[in-house]
């Protein structure tokens, strides 16, 4: 590409200085481009989406990372099964049906007549290869550990059947497989790829790194053809700019907005499946006394927090698992705001020699959700009024992760960790073990009784699964009190009146382009 800084060649000798100035003028007037920028021409048949960040990669096995997943999942690549975010039902995608042969063996019947973007047919071999690459390989896929704990066996039975085996009984294996995006066997299995080939309704057209990413409709798609011929993603870190892009007609959809970003009449709110909470490190005095943990729950004014800090968006939460997720317990009440009771509990603990004056640190994370710093200030204020000694430390993501994940830093004293959890998969199994289990990757405290309940729930299915997880959540709330759950959060997108799209609980993690259509179209 010709450098825009170079002055244009002109006939005649107008003088070097004048040529340079003329060059600058011409550049600015004729529409020069930023170095290396690509064309972003977008017609009416292109839906334009403003994201908070550029996807670091479109690697399908990292599709559980939000930035990657919302571009890749169900747009470029597809899984065998897919959970309907509205009904919670597991639906067929590249597999048309599945059956459990015995406790650890499943057969998946595959859809016929499906081709990858490169023209190669989707086969049982590709399905088995994708499962193996995602779950068992050494490429550190993001679903490993989070979705799958143990290796999974995947073998070809015939052209349209793949057999999947697990080490232990796993009643929700088909749900877990909704996290495995299917790629052709030509995909590198020794390292991650940046631009995958899939079977989805869109294929990657052009990725101008740092500038934008364009997907084009896959004209050979096996399913219903999506309305838009192309999708153009661009990214702006600043929420108010993303909102302004929709207001000014430069984008059709802007995601990840805060109430203060000013999306105005274009704002569309939706329950985003995230729950905010403070994790209490119950191994450290004074937090090792359950009365202090109960006091913390009574001391935080959730209604006030939502009304004032979250601009009225969100619902006071009673448990980490929101409604619609298997295992949610509708009978757990949210802790009421009762500063009087909180003070009494702290005083009782003090009278018994619990060191309630020891300073507790709230470890916050900048930008974990809008007004994250203000949220911990509200919590701090409540706890101070309850008679506890509290200070705040705000960290960036990486520093905060040191506190989120095992092994935790030593000698840090009693802490409350600001956190947020979203259960994308719709089953409490994806919450309980890692967050409440004694050995969970994100767990600072657990009890053998709770572990036992979680384990029992994980091995059960159907109604029994529902009730056992619900029982585990109630037990946590009554007997363990390992956290102070704050709110089920609300997401905001800005949506142009030109586009029809209804965000749902899955929108944060996957934005299905096929669900978007022009407002004036059919």
């Amino acid at each position, binding site marked *: 590409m010709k*450098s*825009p*800084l170079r002055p244009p060649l002109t006939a005649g000798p107008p003088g070097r200085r004048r040529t340079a100035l003329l060059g*600058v003028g011409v550049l*600015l*007037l*004729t*529409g*020069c*481009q*930023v*170095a*290396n*920028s*690509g*064309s*972003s021409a977008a017609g009416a048949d292109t839906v334009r989406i403003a994201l908070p960040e550029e996807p*670091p*990669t479109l690697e399908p096995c990292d599709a*559980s990372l939000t930035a990657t997943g919302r571009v890749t999942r169900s747009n470029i690549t597809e899984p065998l099964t897919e959970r309907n975010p509205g009904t919670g039902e597991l639906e067929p995608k590249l597999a048309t049906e599945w059956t459990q042969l015995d406790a650890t063996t499943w057969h998946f019947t595959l859809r016929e007549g499906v081709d990858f973007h490169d023209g190669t047919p989707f086969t049982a071999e590709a399905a088995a290869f994708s499962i193996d690459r995602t779950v068992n390989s*050494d490429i*550190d*896929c*993001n*679903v*490993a*550990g*989070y979705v799958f704990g143990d290796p999974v066996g995947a073998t070809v039975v015939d052209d349209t059947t793949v057999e999947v085996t697990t080490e232990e009984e796993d009643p929700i294996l088909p749900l877990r497989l909704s996290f495995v995006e299917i790629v052709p066997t030509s995909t590198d299995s020794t*390292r*991650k790829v*940046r631009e995958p080939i899939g079977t989805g309704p869109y294929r990657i057209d052009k990725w101008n*790194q*740092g*500038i934008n990413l364009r997907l084009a409709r896959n004209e050979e798609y096996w399913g219903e053809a999506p309305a838009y011929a192309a999708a153009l993603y*661009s*990214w*702006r*870190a*600043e929420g*108010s*700019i993303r909102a*302004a*892009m929709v*207001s*000014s*007609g*430069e984008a059709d959809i802007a995601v990840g907005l805060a109430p203060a970003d000013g999306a105005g009449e274009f704002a569309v709110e939706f329950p985003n499946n995230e729950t905010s909470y403070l994790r209490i490190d119950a191994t450290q005095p004074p937090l090792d006394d359950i009365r202090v943990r109960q006091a913390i729950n009574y001391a935080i004014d959730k209604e006030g927090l939502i009304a004032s800090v979250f601009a009225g968006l969100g619902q006071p939460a009673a448990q980490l698992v929101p409604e619609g997720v298997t295992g949610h317990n509708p009978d757990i009440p949210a802790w009421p705001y009762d500063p009087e009771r909180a003070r009494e509990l702290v005083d009782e603990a003090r009278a018994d020699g619990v060191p309630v004056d020891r300073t507790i640190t709230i470890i916050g994370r900048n930008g974990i959700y809008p007004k994250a710093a203000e949220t911990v200030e509200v919590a701090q204020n409540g706890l101070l009024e309850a008679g506890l000694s509290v200070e705040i430390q705000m960290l*960036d*993501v*990486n*520093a905060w*992760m*040191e506190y*989120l*994940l095992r092994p935790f830093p030593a000698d840090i004293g009693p802490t409350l960790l600001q956190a947020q959890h979203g259960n994308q998969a719709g089953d409490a199994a994806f919450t309980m073990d*890692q967050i409440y289990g004694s050995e*969970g*990757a*994100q767990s600072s405290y657990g009890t053998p009784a709770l572990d036992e309940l979680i384990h029992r729930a994980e091995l059960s299915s159907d109604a029994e699964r529902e009730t056992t997880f619900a029982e585990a959540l109630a037990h946590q709330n009554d007997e363990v009190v390992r956290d102070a759950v704050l709110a089920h959060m609300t997401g905001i997108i800005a949506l142009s009146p030109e586009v029809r799209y209804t965000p749902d609980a899955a929108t944060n993690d996957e934005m299905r382009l096929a669900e978007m259509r022009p407002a004036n179209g059919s």
Partner: protein
Amino acid sequence: MLIFLRHRVISSALPLLFVILGVFFLARLTGDPANLYLPLSATPEMREAFSEQHGFNDPLLVQFGDYLAQLVQLDFGESLRTAQPAAEAVLRAFPATLQLAGFTMLFAIIGAVVVGSLAAYRPNSPMDRIASFLSATAASIPDFWFAIMGVLIFAVHLEWLPTSGTVGAGVWVLPIATLLIRPFGVLTQVVRGAMVSALSAPYIKVARSKGASEQRVIFKHALRNAGAPALTVAGDLTVGLINGAVVVETIFGWPGIGKLMIDSILQRDFAVLQAAVLITALTIFALNILIDICYALLDARVRQGELA
């Protein structure tokens, strides 16, 4: 001149070495990037393998030695985030920032020379007071506020300009205007001050007595002498622009080096951060030498002073 240059190169090389050292060791004090790049429930074995693969298990001095050995071969390492060569990311981002800084300084200098000279021509006149007030205000407006206000007024309400982006002529206006405002304010004050003293110097009286036009007196005789201090300040401001384009690049989605640096700090993408800082430092280093040469060309005393 060559001796002067050699002297400047040698005296600037030491700070450059400190930059390389500082970025390398400070970055590694900020925590293990495995947290960001491995699944939340990664096993200790996975973490160990990750650290081993990227050499984070070696003692820091060994890591630094390896880094220097790579640098000698112009190998800047690989991005943890994108698994692409770090130098590629930096070289992609750098021209965008240079363009932005270059145009901004060009307009700042032209504006400051015109306004500063006019204000200095009649000190304490209404024109001078207005210019001083405006330049002082401009020098103190926060970039962030100005950028957001610009977007709200010119993109959302008036719909004259795009909010952000990289394609088309309009996308340059708001980022340049945002970046321009401070250097313009500072430079105008400097030019005014230098011109006030230059215009009262004896040689100006001589020039006038010889019948030179006022235009020639101001822009030829006085400005030449006022140019040297303004040039030094302009040089510093350009260096500041390259370093400080972060806000503008983040807001307007400008794919430049400032945004790349912030992203690589937040992502603990050590190789990209090191490459970005090193290449920026080299550019600033070259820019400083260029400013010194211009300064020396404008003012012979500097050359002689350096040689003495």
